[in-house]
């Protein structure tokens, strides 16, 4: 079972996101004033500065905007993973998140920009939270 680095708290902006993740729900913010989709979580709207950001649930589907297959990482949490896929995924609701794409037989050949992906909440060996990663649809 993976044992990824965990977010650290107290951290008020990102806390609601991770509480949702505990319930296997991917969430994002949207501005109540100008409707801008905001991600990563924060206090003020990145378009108009309003503090009226509301949390929304994502369906957890999107496409790979770009990726890299990481071959070397000296961080102990990732050193022994083998080649793994780091990616930016564009969710259908309009936000871009960093993630890993998992469950690929050969990450060196079987992944492409533009592929459709769906969120999976990956249980961890230790740590309080599952981690939202993505699988090919």
């Amino acid at each position, binding site marked *: 079972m993976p044992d990824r680095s965990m977010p*650290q708290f107290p951290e008020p902006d990102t806390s609601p996101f991770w509480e949702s993740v505990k319930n296997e729900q991917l969430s994002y913010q949207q501005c109540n004033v100008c409707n801008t*989709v905001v991600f990563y979580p924060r206090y003020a709207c990145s378009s108009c500065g309003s503090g009226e950001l509301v949390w929304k649930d994502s369906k957890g589907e999107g496409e790979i905007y*770009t990726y*890299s297959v*990481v071959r*070397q990482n000296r961080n102990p949490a*990732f050193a022994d993973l083998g080649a793994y896929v*780091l990616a930016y995924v564009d969710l259908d609701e309009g936000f*871009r998140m960093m993630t890993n794409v998992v469950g690929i037989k050969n990450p060196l050949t079987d992944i492409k920009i533009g592929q459709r992906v769906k969120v999976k909440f990956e249980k961890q060996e230790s740590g309080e939270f599952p981690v939202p990663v993505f699988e090919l649809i």
Partner: protein
Amino acid sequence: MSQKRESAIVGIHEYPKRYAPDVSAMDIKAISIKAALDDAGLSWSDIDGLYDAQDGEGGGGLGLAAYLGIKPTVIDTTSVGGSSYEFHTAHAMRDIASGKCNVAVLSYGSKAASLRTPIGTGGVSGGGNWQANMEASYGQTLISNYAMVAHRHMHEYGTTSEQLAQISVSTRHHAMRNPQAVQAMTDLQFEGIGEITVEDVLDSRVIADPLHLLECCMVSDGGGALIIVSKEIAEKTNKPPVWLLGSGEATKYRENGGDITTSAGAQSAPIAFSEAGVSPSEIDIAMVYDSFSITVAVCLEDLGFCAKGEAGSYIGDGKLRYDQPGGPALNTDGGGLSSNHPGMRGLFLLLESVRQLRGESTSQVENAKLAVAHGNGGLLGGNHTGGTIILAAD
């Protein structure tokens, strides 16, 4: 537009060693400041502006002046990664023009090699803040962040690894002409010290797809310093001044729907060129931050040397070498890829620009009149800054 020549670089020093276990980063800064002052014909007590990226043990805004034993009237500790020194130069230009200081000093010291700092493959997110908490679980390394830019660039524009490799090949050619770079590769135990081919680059191991080892900068010790002065003082210094004509600063970051193949340079460069009253086609020397091959490709486009997406074919035309026509020479000291990269390379971009415009480079471009130094700090595919400086020979 008439060019303003209100401030100039009049003294430079690049600390010659790339592996220096027996000195501190603060030592490197002080040694370099003294040597740069000597180069200019100025003295320690002339310094009245201190610009620092908060590098060095016990330095920064609270410690560097104390270490040097000076009392400057301007203290600027802008720390925006590798482009900090382009930002410092921009600020020194403003501070000198407004009369706040007359002798500005920028310095850099780093022990990244001897301390074995895992810059490229150590992971970039520690957790505990609004961004890190969203990224810490995914094993992003610095190299893989840049690699994501490379993949998207390849996807959108058909750029190839063969094309990107030409950047490494050209700058290695420059490095082999620079004794300090050859010594650096020797001291840092490079496997092959000599000219390299595109095949050599593609045969080197992949660190993070699609970037190969020979597309990644070295991790060295090192540092340096430079002295920027007012027009009045520049008339009395040892060597011909190198004039600062324009500056631009910008930032960029991961955005929903954003274009990762365009860097902050697309914002900073037009500001700098406009202030300088020159166009990219007039530039003789392009000192472009080469943390990785893709950084150069993206920044060449954003600086206006070719259109967005066309860096691959531009590079492939062989325009980058100091002795080739058709475009500015790239990183004539050997760059971060093959000469010097202790973590924040921005200072060296300015130092080699000055050497070229004085006629002192080991890969001297004949009659070089105009240079651009463009720093990219942070993560090209995430938070980063772009700092552009336009320099002119006397």
